[in-house]
Structure formats: C-alpha cells, structure tokens
C-alpha cells in the first residue's frame, strides 16, 4: 500500500474529519441485528448498506482522532503511523461513497468493505508492535485505554461490515428464504455452551499438544452446569474467549504436570472444569484449572498492553491477525501437515447445494480453502447432526471449511507458493478415534463468516516458531476481555498461587446490551 507523505496539507485537510468526529456513533444491540436481519428484503438490505456506509466513517473518524491525540513522538513510530495511514485511507474511501440505491451498488460496496477488512488484518500486530516500542513515551494506563478503545472499535466496525456482507451474500444466494438455520448474518441464534466448549476444547487441546511436539496429552475438560442453555451470539466472539481460556488452562496444567513428573510424580493431569451457569440475564462460563496459578510477578499485568514490553515481541513474526478462533486452527497445522487435497474436494462435493447456499460466494472469495479436520462423529450421532453439517459418515476425518479470505497481494503471492495442505490442521490419529457426542456448527458458521480471516502469515517460519507464536502472542487475555465486554459481558480471572486459576467469562444472554466501544 502506498505510504502517505505527511505534507503540510495533511494538517489542514484534517478539517474533513471534524464533522464526523462531532457525530456520535449509533450503538446497536445484538438483538437489533437479529431482528433486522430476519426476512431480508431488498429495501432492508439497502437500508443496512447505507447504515454501514454512514456509520463506518464516523467510527473510524473517532479512532483517527484518538491517534491524533497521542503524543507527537508516538505518532512518528512507523507501526503506529502505518495503522494511522490505513485508517485514513479507509476513512477517505468510505466517506466518498454516495447513497447506495441499487443491489449492484451494494455489491460493489461489499467488495470495497471486504477489501478494507483484509487490508486491516495487519492492524493488531502493527498496533501491538507500535505500542511496545512506544511504551516509554506514554504512561501504561493511557496505553491500555488507547488499545482497548482501538480493539473495541475495531470489533464494532468488523461486526457491522461482516454482518452486512453476510446478509448480502445470503440474500444473493438462490434459496435464501429457506436456509436460515439459525443464522442471521454472522449471528447464530442457537448458540449452545456444550457445542462451544467441545469445539474450543478440542482446538485448544490440539494447539497445546502440538506445542509439546505431540509428546504430552493435554488434560481433559469436564463440563457441568447448564450446558444445554441456548442463546444468540456471534460464535466467533465467545469461541475466541473460551479457546483462549482453555488454552491457557491447559498450558498451565501441562506445565505443572511436566514439572511434577520431572520431580518423580505421576504426571497425571488434573482435568479442567468448565461450569456453565445460566442466570436471568447472563450466562457465565467458569473455567477452573489446577495448573498452579499465574506467577505473582505476572498477575498484576494480566490485562495490560504496556506493562511488560517484551510481551508482544512475537508479533514481529506475524504480519496479520484477525483475532478470531479460525486463525488458531490454522497455525498449529503447519507442523502436522497431512490432509490431502482429495478430501477437500470430496467434502466440497458432498456438501451439496441445498446445505451450502452461498458456498459459491465463498469460493469466489477464497483463493484457497483452509480446512481444519476434527475427529469424526460417532455413528449414532449422524442422524442428529445439524442440517448442513459437512460431517460425513464415509469420511474418517471431519473437515471444516475454512473459507480463507482473499489475501493481500503481497501475502497472496507468498502463500501461493506454499502448498494448500499446509493450511489444514489434523487432529492426531489417536484423537481422531475419539467420538464426539454432537457435532457443532463450526463449518456452517465459518462459511457464514463472509469475511473470514486467517492469519496465514509467515510462510517462511519454521514450525517451532509457529508453535511459539500460537502459544505466546500475549494478547489473548486482554483481547478476550475486549470481546466479552463488547456485548455487555465481562471476563474476570482469579488465581490461587500454588493451586490453580479460575476464569469467569460472562456474556449477556439476551443480546439487549448496546455495543460497548468506549472505555
């Protein structure tokens, strides 16, 4: 992308920002999104397009102003400057779009927004690096506030954009009237704790298993409480949180287990307990481990972006991050690398048109399909699986469509050199035999994510580096809290030194809380 030269004009051009900054953002609720997205009609779709068209520049303008209020020295940091520049470009593009009156205009608008979403995959790594390098120039509290604002606002813009893109692609698919299946855009109205925990636990286990080179099995996850509660949510958000929590817990338990084994213990890993509690307005996931607790030195900095400058050092190794669970499924795959292209093809054929109404759109978007394989379902559960599931009795492995985003030109060229199977994660054979009680909708949801992103960043890294980066980006916990707070929930972590850690992720059940994007 072209670098802006900050001529004296830039200062005076800044005026164009003013009317947007003066406008307040119009926060929405999940419920509004759900109601609006039902029974989509052309006029509603155009209304949605124009809402997004008007809202995005306003939200961007607020964040640009935040950048401008940083100390001058910070603004001159190349990473910060790059993000600032990206935001300006996006702002200029979006603010120039005239009223959207036709479906064709809407399609063009969606293409533009998709492009922006992808351009912005570099934002989190760049911001993290920039903040790391600037930590001596800004007090930590200000850094945290700035980062939280940035991340929340980023979620808010992505939610708006992705929701609209998803609604559009649903609308464009031939049989959109009959294929609701619980999805309204990117929102799933039948989110279920059992599915969420099962899926994220398997992924987290896989990540942790890979990080030991397959030498150590991660601890089991025990679930209890109201695991069959149902709520509407953006699956990505809650899954990101639970994946992070479970991964952290497993890592601690495994680390402690390894230590105790070295000291002559049995090395048996105590299970991680996930308790789901349903209250009047909320659902709480309590993730409780016996991993020995967080180091006392680290504990005060759990939520800070600034306190431990070395924390984000790993971001130098990756260039893009969407902060979604999908990218977690990809990174560990590099070291396994065994899913054949053949199965990919089969799975796509097997899907059929009726179950995958907008596969075509996604095919268009994807330069290549990234897939994650999960263990096959037990035979008896095939009848129960959701319609549209890709799980196939004939296959020994379960493929998850990982509709990767179209890539930036430069990374696209680099990934194209890597063979496609690179991007496929396989759960190891022993695990593959493990029956899953009920299959989730991960495939569906990922296909519904119109602008799904994959980190797919460093094609040249060795597998060990990838393990590192998958494990220790250092942003997982604060990012999880931003996700949790975004729709009015929260995330709390209490550690018992010498024993273990309890994390409480609370989300609002009814989705009637407004987006929370200012700290």
């Amino acid at each position, binding site marked *: 992308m072209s670098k802006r030269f900050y001529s004296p004009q830039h200062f005076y051009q800044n005026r164009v920002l003013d009317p947007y900054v003066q406008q307040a953002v119009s926060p929405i609720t999940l419920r509004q999104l759900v109601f609006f997205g039902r029974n989509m009609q052309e006029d509603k779709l155009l209304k949605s397009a124009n809402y997004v068209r008007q809202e995005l520049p306003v939200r961007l303008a607020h964040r640009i102003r935040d950048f401008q209020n940083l100390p001058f020295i910070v603004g001159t940091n190349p990473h910060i400057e790059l993000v600032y520049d990206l935001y300006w470009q996006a702002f200029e593009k979006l603010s120039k779009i005239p009223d959207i009156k036709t479906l064709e205009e809407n399609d063009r608008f969606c293409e533009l927004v998709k492009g922006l979403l992808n351009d912005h995959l570099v934002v989190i790594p760049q911001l993290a690096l920039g903040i790391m390098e600037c930590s001596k120039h800004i007090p930590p509290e200000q850094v945290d506030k700035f980062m939280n604002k940035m991340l929340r606002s980023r979620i808010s813009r992505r939610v708006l954009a992705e929701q609209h893109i998803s609604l559009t692609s649903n609308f464009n698919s031939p049989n959109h009237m009959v294929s609701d299946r619980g999805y309204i855009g990117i929102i799933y109205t039948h989110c279920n704790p059992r599915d969420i925990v099962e899926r994220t*636990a398997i992924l987290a286990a896989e990540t942790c298993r890979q990080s030991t080179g397959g030498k150590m099995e991660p601890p089991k996850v025990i679930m209890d409480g109201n695991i069959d509660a149902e709520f509407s949510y953006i699956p990505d958000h809650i899954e990101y949180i639970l994946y992070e929590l479970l991964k952290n817990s497993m890592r601690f338990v495994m680390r402690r287990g390894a230590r105790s084994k070295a000291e002559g213990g049995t090395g048996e890993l105590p299970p991680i307990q996930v308790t789901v509690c349903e209250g009047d307005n909320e659902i709480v996931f309590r993730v409780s481990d016996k991993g020995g607790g967080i180091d006392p030195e680290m504990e005060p900095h759990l939520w800070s972006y600034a306190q431990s400058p070395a924390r984000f050092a790993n971001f130098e190794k990756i260039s893009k991050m969407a902060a979604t669970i999908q990218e977690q499924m990809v990174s560990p795959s590099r070291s396994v690398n065994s899913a054949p292209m053949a199965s990919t093809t089969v799975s796509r054929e097997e899907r059929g048109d009726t179950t995958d109404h907008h596969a075509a759109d996604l095919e268009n978007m994807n330069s290549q399909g990234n897939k994650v394989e999960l263990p096959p379902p037990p035979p*008896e559960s095939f009848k129960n699986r959701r319609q549209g599931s890709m799980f196939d009795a004939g296959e020994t492995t379960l493929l998850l469509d990982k509709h990767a985003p179209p890539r930036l030109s430069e990374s696209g060229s680099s990934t194209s050199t890597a063979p496609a199977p690179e991007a496929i994660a396989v759960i190891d054979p022993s695990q593959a035999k493990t029956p899953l009680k009920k299959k989730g909708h991960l495939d569906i949801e990922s296909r519904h994510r119109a602008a799904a992103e994959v980190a797919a960043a460093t094609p040249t890294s060795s597998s060990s580096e990838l393990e590192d980066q998958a494990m220790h980006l250092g942003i997982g916990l604060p990012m999880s809290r931003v996700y949790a707070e975004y729709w009015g929930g929260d995330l709390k972590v209490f550690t018992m030194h010498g024993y273990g850690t309890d994390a409480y992720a609370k989300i609002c059940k009814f989705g009637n809380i407004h987006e929370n994007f200012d700290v």
Partner: protein
Amino acid sequence: MTSPATPFARIALRQGQLHWQQHSHARPVLSARLWAFRPRQLHIPAEANSAASSTVVKTHRALTHTFSTRTNGLIRDRSTLMSSLLQAAPAAHLPLANTHLRQFHQHQQFEHDDVISFYDDKVTQYANQQLQTVTLKTLLGLGRTPESGSSPHTLETNLQVARYARQELPVRLARLIKATQKLPFIVGTNPYIKSVYKLYYDSFQTITNSAEAQEIRTKEDLDKFAALLQGLVSSHADVVPMLSQGFQESKKYMNKADIKVFLDGMIHARIGIRLIAEQVISLWEQRNHHLQDEALDSKEQYMVGVVHTGLKPAELIRTCASFVQELCDVNYGSSPEVVINGQIDAKFTYVPVHLEYILCELLKNAVRATVEHSKKMGRSALTPHGDRKASPYSASSGSDARSMVVIDGEGDDSMDETKRVNEFGHPPVEVTIAQGDHEITIRIRDQGGGISRDNMESIFDYSFTTVKNENESSDSLDAGDGDSPYGVDSIFKGVSRLAMQAGLGGPIAGLGFGLPLTRIYAQYFGGDMHLISLQGHGCDVFIKLKQIDETLDNLQI
C-alpha cells in the same frame, strides 16, 4: 464465649419460648442469638410478634449496654438501676424501659461531657501527631519465635510492646475522635453515635492520663497498663452494633457514600487499635502463664500475642464450618456438607481471630444460600440434580473415558465429593486452600444460586435495618420462600445477624455489616477478598491473605 450458651439458645428456640428468667446468666448471648434467628425461628404468638421481636432486639441492646457499662466501671448506681429495670420489666414492656434508659443517658451525662470535649484541644494535639510506622516485627515480637530460639515472652519484649502501645494508641484514638467530630452536628447528637464518641473520648482520656503519669518500666507498671487496656477493650465490645444503629437512625442526614467512607475508616482504625491493645494483653497473659507453667501445649507454642505462627487454615475452616452448620441445623433443620480440599496441610502466620471472623461470615452466607436455594429449587435427596435440566443427549451418548470433553453428571460423579449432595439434597460448600510463596488463598464455593445482578452492586454497602423495618419485612420473610437467598435484605437480616464472637472484633451482631466488615478484615494485612456471583448457580469467594512475615515489614497497620 458463645458456645456455653448454645444449649440455652437452642432450648429456647426449639420450645419456641423465651426463657429469660430461667437462664438469666446467659442472657446477653442468648438474646443475641434470638435476635439472630428472629425472622424465621421465633415462634412468638402472632399478635405479640411485632412487640416481641422488637423486644428481643432492644433487650439485647440494653443488656449488652449494661454489661459494657459495668465493665467500664462507670457509675455503678446506674448500671444497677438499668439491670433492675430490665429484670423488673416483663418482656413486653422492655421497649419502654429502654426508652427511659436512653433518656437517662442523654440528660445526665452527655451535655456535661460535650462541653469538656469541646474545650479539650489535647485530642487535636494527638491527632496531628504522625502515626509511627510500625513493623509487625516490633509489634508482634516476631523474629523471636520459638523456632529461632528465644522466647517472645520476655519481660523486655512485653515492655517494649506496651510502651509502643501507650504511645500509639492515643494518637489513633485521637484520630477516630477527630473523624467523629467532623460528622454533621445532627448525626453527632444521635444517642448511639454520641455513646461511641463518648467511649472513644473516655478511652483517650484514660490512656493519656496514664501515659502522662509514668513510664512503663517495671512488671508492676505493665500489670497496671494491661489491666487498663483490658477494661478499655471490653468497654468497646459493642461499638459496631452501636454505630450500625446510630447510622441507621441518621441515614437521612448523610449520603450513603459518606457514611461508607466514615465507617470503613472507623472500622479499619478500630481493628488496628484493638490489635495493638489485644497484643499487649495477650503477650502479658501468655508471659504470666509461662511463668506459672513451663510446659506449653501445642497451640500456645505458636502463639505470639494474638498472632499464630503455625496457623492451619484447614483446621480453622473445620471449626468454623461445624459451628456454622450447627447454627444452620437449628435454623433450617438441615445443612450442607463443607468439603475442604486443596493444600489442606498449609500453614501460615496470621491472626486467627481475624481469619475466624472472615471464615464464619463467608461460610454462613454460603451455607444459608445453599439451603435456601435447595428449598427454592426443590432440591432433595430424591432428585440430586434438581436444578439441572435432564440432558437430552445423555441417553444416547455416554461419556467415553478417552474423550477430550466429558460431560459431568452423566457418568458416575459420586467419585467427586464436591459434587455429591448430602441426604438433604444440599450440594456441598467447597473450600479450597492454596498456599503460595507469601500468601494463602482460600476459595469458598457454594451452589446457593448466586446473587442477582441488581443486588451485586450493593453487597459491600453497609445496610442498615431498623427494628421497625424488621417487623415490616418479617412477615414477607416468614411467609414467602421466594425471597432471593442472597438478597441483600434477607442475607443481612438473617444469619449474619448472629452475635458471633469475633475475637478482636468483639461480638458482631451482623446488622448488615457482614460483607463490608469481612472485606476490611481480609484487606487488613494487605490481603483482599473478591466475590463472584454465578447467577443461577452459586457464589465463589476468594480470600487472599498475606503471610504475616518479614515481607510485610513495610506495611502500616
């Protein structure tokens, strides 16, 4: 102190009668207990209900008042008068008697004292002095623990601590007095607030007079000083209930936040004062004991004044749990198990009475919430998972042992004692102990349904209840089982009302001070307390307590 009275309290409760005359010697405790259980357990004839319950409250107040006045060594006539008044008055007329007492107080004493304290600038002088940064080592005589060879119970140590106390206590008292003087005038005229003010002012006078009289040099000086402190400590036993009543009556003159700031400061300072005073007294007592008898029992070996250098939280939890369970049995007819796990052999250095107060308060809440939630959810022995929806998948998909994710409750969960419900259908309260390098964390988990979002915000507020309010709400409490178990009102009005012997804190009559006070105790030596509510499930409370050791040297207590 409470335990001997338990049978009496129980007899009275079980028979549903008030046995004032028969067990007069147990009265203060008895009345406190009755007060505690009044809303649910006292079966007073309906028409007498409101009068009698207010009687219980007032009797308690009057009796404790009498006691404190007696120990205070104040005008003996008045104390005789009061007690005879109480004895003479049939229960129903007690409120009247109490009013007389209060008026008597106001007219005879306070007006005169006000004038004295107004022109007294000694308080100001002392209040302006810096508090000494006291390391716990000097105060508690640590570093001379039995392990290190020399005894903390030498005369020299005792004298040092006593000298420190005599220098420090007037400053701290003066600050408390100053803080009280800054209350709005109308609040200061409230008889209860005024009594507290008076108590502190008297104590300040007593201790400064003694300080000016002579240095503490000899054993005799020490004996005298210790006796003086004992008198002060016992006279202050009732300060918290008095404050509670006082602020209840004057809450319309001060906003909630200001009251909270004042009470937090007041109670925190009070804990410090009591700690210093009790330390002098117990060191003195322990030394006397040592002189008489060389053989120490195992507990005494670890006691340095009020500090226990080998405190096992598991043991204390067990003691508190059985005490709380007993109370719960009396009140509800059943109680949940208390499962203790984690590092149960952990040991650390702490003030046992502080921990005891914290544990009793929290266990009480947990146990009560569990029982009430059981009732609400219809949990019983027959339906061990009464609050759990039957899983639609459990039939078809048994959990495989190798599975990554195990659904609990489908398999055999009797292996896990934290899940096993007891014969009354109550899930256990789980207490987990974790020992870190410099701290102990205790987690108390209950399955009592949690706290609703609305109440969550006010759980650390001081909630005041009046006799009148109690009567108003007692009907609904007795009638409806639907009140939320952790509802701010019900929890503070009910079990936390127990007059629990809180050691240094004196008998705590609850009065809606339970959780805020618990947190102040937990934070006292740099620890903390967090409560997480899982609505629909239960509460998790984390208490983090720092070891009282050399790492706390810089802590100002």
